[in-house]
């Protein structure tokens, strides 16, 4: 029911109300908010420990039995809350943000479609269903990123996102096929019991299967080397960036990893954690030298996703999902606040054109500050707790390299976030638009405030309790106060994290407070240029994969043109033509020749029938 409401609203909007902006958006918002309320009611009635599955047989081919099933447990319920809750806030915000857009109704139809497919991923109880919704998410994100398709850059970004995702999905599909081939089932719970009973069943190909499935997560959660689509996806409207690239779609990969964690063995987990750590580091470095307000946040998302994937790889799904949830709150908040800034600045996105916005946009300023503090991990904001859980997890696994990467990335995160913060909100106005900026309307600021509350309090309202009950058999339930003091149990990672925050903050403060231009390029030289150009990944891909692809395409074209069309089709056509010409000579057009041949034929026939 929760699942199908958004689909219904998407269908209704597309079919009936494309002409009316207000009705369409109200339908869409209503669907998501109703979903949220229903989830809340359900959890109230059943509690988080509820776990159930319902399924109907969808199709069965030979031995393959595919159910259309829903699975509800603590993990999917928390995700339901995140998707409908954060999604609902974003929907409401979009009502303000997109108000002047011609095709607002279309926008809301896409948003509803996206929400539907995301809920499908969350609720799926088998691999195939998850894959179907996975692809649906891909399609709807393509539609949303390319929403302003009049802009060529938006169209390109949409295509890039879609194709990059397809690459990952290809591996994902192979992984699914492999799991099915080896274990004969696609249902998560069946797989889990089979594997628990007989851990060697996957055998030698366990690592390969795990890595192939991780490929899917790599595409959706934008991990290195498939990370290139996420920053470009910022061409979409800002609420889309918040919904897709902060709260939900990119979280799908991490969610999927946690859901299927039982499939991965030690080697594949190791690879996953390394890729996650590397992505976190790389993206944080790139974020330092971006000038577009949305791109900075996008790279920061990449980096935080790297954190989560790394944590999953370190066998810490609780910490990963915890960070995913808090990240959904504060990153959606940051994106929406950035969107508010962009609207206030009349669609100016260069941070060096802004400045001193704290006076002009007080609510945005306040909520952005909360988001910033949460992202950096300043206690007692939510990010502090989840980041601390991650660092503690790394230390617990005695993985000191990843631990130090984590701390370093935390410092970088603080640095670039406060760089953004100082340049945009402090200092002097750097352009005329900045001095004429205005606060956004109430429909936009209210979701900001709601998200800000959660970004603040997300650390100790029981999120870990719920995830813990999913992943650890004996997890003690902590009270609010215990959660608030949880980091003190493990003091070393907390101190490292706080130290990193302090270092980052003071660096940013000394460099960017009252700065009118970026001082870093002079100090760092080529390194800064490399960061700014995203370490030339796009160029590298352009030079290798795209060239290779073009070459292959040229070869295929040549084969088609000369061998298939020229030789084979030419020969067949020429042969038919020649025999046709020869046979034409037999047709004299003379009636009597025909009559003669006819009689000859009859005579022959008579001879054969009677003469023998």
């Amino acid at each position, binding site marked *: 029911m929760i699942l199908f409401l958004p689909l219904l609203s998407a269908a209704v909007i597309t079919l009936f109300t494309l002409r009316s902006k207000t009705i369409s958006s109200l339908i869409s918002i209503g669907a998501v908010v109703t979903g949220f309320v229903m989830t809340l009611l359900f959890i109230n009635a059943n509690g988080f420990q509820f776990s159930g599955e319902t399924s109907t047989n969808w199709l069965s081919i030979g031995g393959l039995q595919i159910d259309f099933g829903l699975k509800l447990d603590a993990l999917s319920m928390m995700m339901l809350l995140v998707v409908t809750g954060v999604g609902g806030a974003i929907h409401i915000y979009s009502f303000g943000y997109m108000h002047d857009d011609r095709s607002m109704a279309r926008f809301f139809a896409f948003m509803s479609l996206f929400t539907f497919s995301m809920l499908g991923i969350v609720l799926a109880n088998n691999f195939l269903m998850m894959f179907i919704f996975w692809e649906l998410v891909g399609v709807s994100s393509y539609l949303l990123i390319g929403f302003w398709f009049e802009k060529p850059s938006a169209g390109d970004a949409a295509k890039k996102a879609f194709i990059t995702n397809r690459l990952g999905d290809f591996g994902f599909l192979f992984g699914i096929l492999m799991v099915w081939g080896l274990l004969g089932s696609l249902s998560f719970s069946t797989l889990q019991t089979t594997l628990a009973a007989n851990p060697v069943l996957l055998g030698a190909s366990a690592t390969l299967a795990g890595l192939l499935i991780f490929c899917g997560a790599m595409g959706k959660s934008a991990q290195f080397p498939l990370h290139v689509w996420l920053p470009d996806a910022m061409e979409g409207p800002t609420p889309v960036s918040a919904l897709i690239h902060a709260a939900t779609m990119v979280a799908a990969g991490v969610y999927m990893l946690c859901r299927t964690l039982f499939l991965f063995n030690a080697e594949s987990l190791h690879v996953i954690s390394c890729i996650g750590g590397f992505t976190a580091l790389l993206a944080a470095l790139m974020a330092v030298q971006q000038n577009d307000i949305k791109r900075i946040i996008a790279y920061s998302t990449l980096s935080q996703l790297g954190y989560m994937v790394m944590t999953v790889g370190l066998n810490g799904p609780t910490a990963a999902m915890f960070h995913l949830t808090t990240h959904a709150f504060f990153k959606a908040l940051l994106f929406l606040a950035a969107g508010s800034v962009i609207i206030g600045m009349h669609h100016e996105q260069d941070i060096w054109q802004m400045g001193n916005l704290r006076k002009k946009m007080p609510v945005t300023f306040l909520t952005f500050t909360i988001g910033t503090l949460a992202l950096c991990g300043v206690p007692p904001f939510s990010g502090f707790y989840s980041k601390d859980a991650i660092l503690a997890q790394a230390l617990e696994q005695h993985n000191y390299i990843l631990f130090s990467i984590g701390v370093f990335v935390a410092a970088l995160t603080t640095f670039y976030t406060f760089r953004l913060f100082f340049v945009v909100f402090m200092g002097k106005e750097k352009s005329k638009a900045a001095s004429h900026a205005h606060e956004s309307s109430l429909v936009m600021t209210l979701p900001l405030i709601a998200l800000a509350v959660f970004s603040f309090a997300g650390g100790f309202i029981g999120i870990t309790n719920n995830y813990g009950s999913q992943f650890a058999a004996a997890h003690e339930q902590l009270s609010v106060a215990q959660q608030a003091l949880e980091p003190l149990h493990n003091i070393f990672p907390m101190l490292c994290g706080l130290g990193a925050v302090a270092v980052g903050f003071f660096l940013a403060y000394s460099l960017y407070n009252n700065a009118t231009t970026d001082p870093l390029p002079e100090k760092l030289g080529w390194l800064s240029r490399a960061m700014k150009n995203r370490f030339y990944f796009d160029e590298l891909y352009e030079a290798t994969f795209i060239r290779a692809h073009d070459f292959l395409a040229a070869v295929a074209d040549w084969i088609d043109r000369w061998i298939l069309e020229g030789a084979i089709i030419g020969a067949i056509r020429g042969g038919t033509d020649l025999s046709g010409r020869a046979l*034409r000579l037999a*047709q004299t*057009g003379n009636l*009597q020749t025909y*009559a*003669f041949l006819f*009689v000859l034929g009859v005579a022959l026939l008579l001879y054969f029938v009677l003469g023998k």
Partner: protein
Amino acid sequence: MHAGLHHYLFVSFMLFGLGLLGVIMRRNLLVIYMSLELMLNAANLVLVSFSRFNNKLDGQVLVFFIITVAAAEVAVGLALIVALYRKRQSAHVEDLTSMKL
């Protein structure tokens, strides 16, 4: 001399052969058409004679029908030839090769 079945059959065979020769050899459409009728009537003769010698009336009844239909067919055929002549000013088969490419 009493005429037996084979006499009739021989006559009808000769008629049929002459008609066929006419269809193949002659150039004028009208003559070809007449030869065609000759062949048809040869077949009729065979039917009648078999009917007579087998003491059954079926063949003769059939011939009545054939003659009736043939009369109609002759009318149509002649009309076609006349129409063709009006259009082409010729009734010779050598001139009627417009179907040839």
